[in-house]
């Protein structure tokens, strides 16, 4: 009885989560008739699948091409993640190993200050960022967007990694220094290799947040730099058919799904093993 209850709960929840996704997937292959004449779900049985929707978004039919936005998104996400990981892990290491501060404000307060930047709703920051980028002539450029995204990703990276570094015994870096490494070498040669799992997790978060950012991209870029979420939303705003919209939605999450599979394999292959006992 307990088991039935348990499984039915799991079933209901999975349905709730999976149905919209699978519906979108199915819809992206539908011909107009299968959408307009009432709900249909099963390809080949209820309708003959077509690639029309996919042709619409890949530039083949000439309707829209999501590849340039994809490349924009990838570039912006890659660089903002790279910058936030590079400097974020250094900041996190510093905060984990040395003590900074002024009067009563010590490391934990600094860390809170970092993460507090994420408390503010992005809408509040939109106007200041807009003016800032305009002054710097960085509006509608990739560099401008990378900088703004980095300012949002860095706190997450620092916050995640400080905790991770705190778990690595301090004695390991001390020993590296005793054995001839200066502090920077100790960090690069002994702490970073041990921090791989932490860096992976932090990087994953940064990529997801960066990839899915709609708000800043919408406000701070216009025509030159259109990211994928912006492009998808733009399709939504026009008279785009449902199958094309569905295809664009699936298209925009595919790269992340692929990445998730790779990372999952890395982690299960022992990316974590042997790091910390």
């Amino acid at each position, binding site marked *: 009885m307990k088991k039935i209850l348990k499984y039915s709960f799991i079933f209901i929840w999975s349905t709730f989560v999976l149905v919209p996704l699978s519906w979108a997937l199915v819809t992206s292959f539908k011909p107009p008739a299968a959408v307009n004449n009432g709900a249909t779900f099963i390809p080949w049985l209820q309708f003959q699948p077509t690639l029309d929707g996919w042709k619409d978004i890949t530039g083949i039919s000439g309707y829209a091409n999501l590849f340039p936005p994809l490349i924009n998104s990838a570039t912006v996400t890659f660089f903002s993640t790279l910058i936030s990981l590079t400097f974020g892990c250094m900041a996190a290491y510093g905060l984990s190993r040395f003590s900074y501060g002024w009067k009563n404000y010590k490391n934990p307060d600094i860390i809170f200050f970092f993460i507090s930047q994420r408390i503010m709703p992005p809408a509040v920051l939109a106007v200041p960022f807009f003016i800032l980028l305009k002054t710097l002539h960085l509006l509608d450029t990739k560099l401008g967007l990378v900088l703004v995204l980095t300012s949002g990703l860095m706190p997450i990276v620092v916050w995640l990694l400080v905790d991770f570094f705190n778990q690595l*015994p301090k*004695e*390991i870096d*001390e*020993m*590296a*220094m*005793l*054995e*001839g*490494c*200066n502090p920077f*070498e100790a960090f690069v040669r*002994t702490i970073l*290799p*041990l921090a791989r799992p932490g860096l992976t997790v932090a990087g994953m978060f940064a990529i997801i947040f960066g990839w899915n950012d709609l708000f800043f991209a919408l406000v701070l870029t216009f025509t030159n730099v259109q990211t994928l979420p912006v492009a998808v939303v733009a399709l939504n705003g026009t008279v785009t058919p449902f199958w094309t919209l569905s295809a664009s939605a699936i298209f925009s999450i595919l790269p992340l799904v692929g990445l998730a599979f790779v990372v999952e394999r890395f982690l299960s292959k022992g990316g974590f093993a*042997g*790091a*910390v*006992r």
Partner: protein
Amino acid sequence: MKGSTVNLDLRSVSVDTETEVILKDISFKFEPGKIYVLIGRTTSGKTSLMRTIAGLIEPTDGEIHLGEERLDEVPIWDRGIAMVYQQFINYPHRTVLNNVEFPLLRAGVSKADAKAQALAMLEKVGLSEFKDRKPSQLSGGQQQRVAIARALVRNTRVILLDEPLMNLDYKLREQLREEFRTLFKGTADSVTIYATTEPSEALFLGDELLVMHEGRVIQHGKPDFVFENPSSIDVAQIVNDPPMTILDAEIKDGKVNIGNLITFPTPAHLKSEKDGKYKIGTRASEVILGGSESNSEEGTVSLSEVSGSETLLYVKLNVGEVVLQLEGIHDYQIGQAVTISLAPNRIFLFNMDGTLCAAPGN
């Protein structure tokens, strides 16, 4: 890097923070080729002293010299000092061999030489067959051996060992202690400093003993001399395991009275002491079970402990708690009544301020 025969010279080294004094005015000259044992309780400053020598703590006052060099002005990574921690610290992501090679490679030794030297050192500590494992795949004793191999392989001028056996069980401690003596004897060019809380390790390994208490060195000398002639009650407690039992006593009219029940004629080594109030100390191994009526008191066992091949009895008397060490393993129940007496010729006499008055000698 071949070490040269140079002294490690501490000159009035002090470390303090805003709130507490960590090390207080420590001056000592360490010579190469000897094992110096720092003994003291947990927070006595042993670790801080080692970390100060290594450069992990900056002294607030004083100077550290290594030969001609002003060591406290050299950054950690250029000091050429090896350290072994109480916890088994190795690089978890490197194999055993790579762990031992690492300090050599950092010191600029060629890859081939580093490997040869690391392998030879692993052979010495008995870990050759584990060279390709990761440290986490080894037992605690083996992990500590890797750490020691890493410290010894560079042949540094100073080797610091901070309670390296503390986290091992007693059979392994016994075994490694013996290995240490042969391992460290081969380091004639190095100053070896070894911190411990265990008197038996200090006596077993040490050429020279430094007793630390509350951030100071309160006595130093040959281990057995310090053991026989502790300069104060603190030293006597620290260099005896179990700690020396200290009781209030009075010398009066040619008699030593401890409480109302234990009393005996003043023994020869205390004859010259004036009448008055004192504190007496007695080693657990020299307390006697049973005894004559005038010189004994009956008490109850509050705990019996077995350590290795000895039984320790904690006996509650009216005059205080006495620890008694019996050879062999015996069965005593908590609450059991036992009679205790003291060996008059084995009594240590201390002034009321804790300084030594007279020791029984050996």
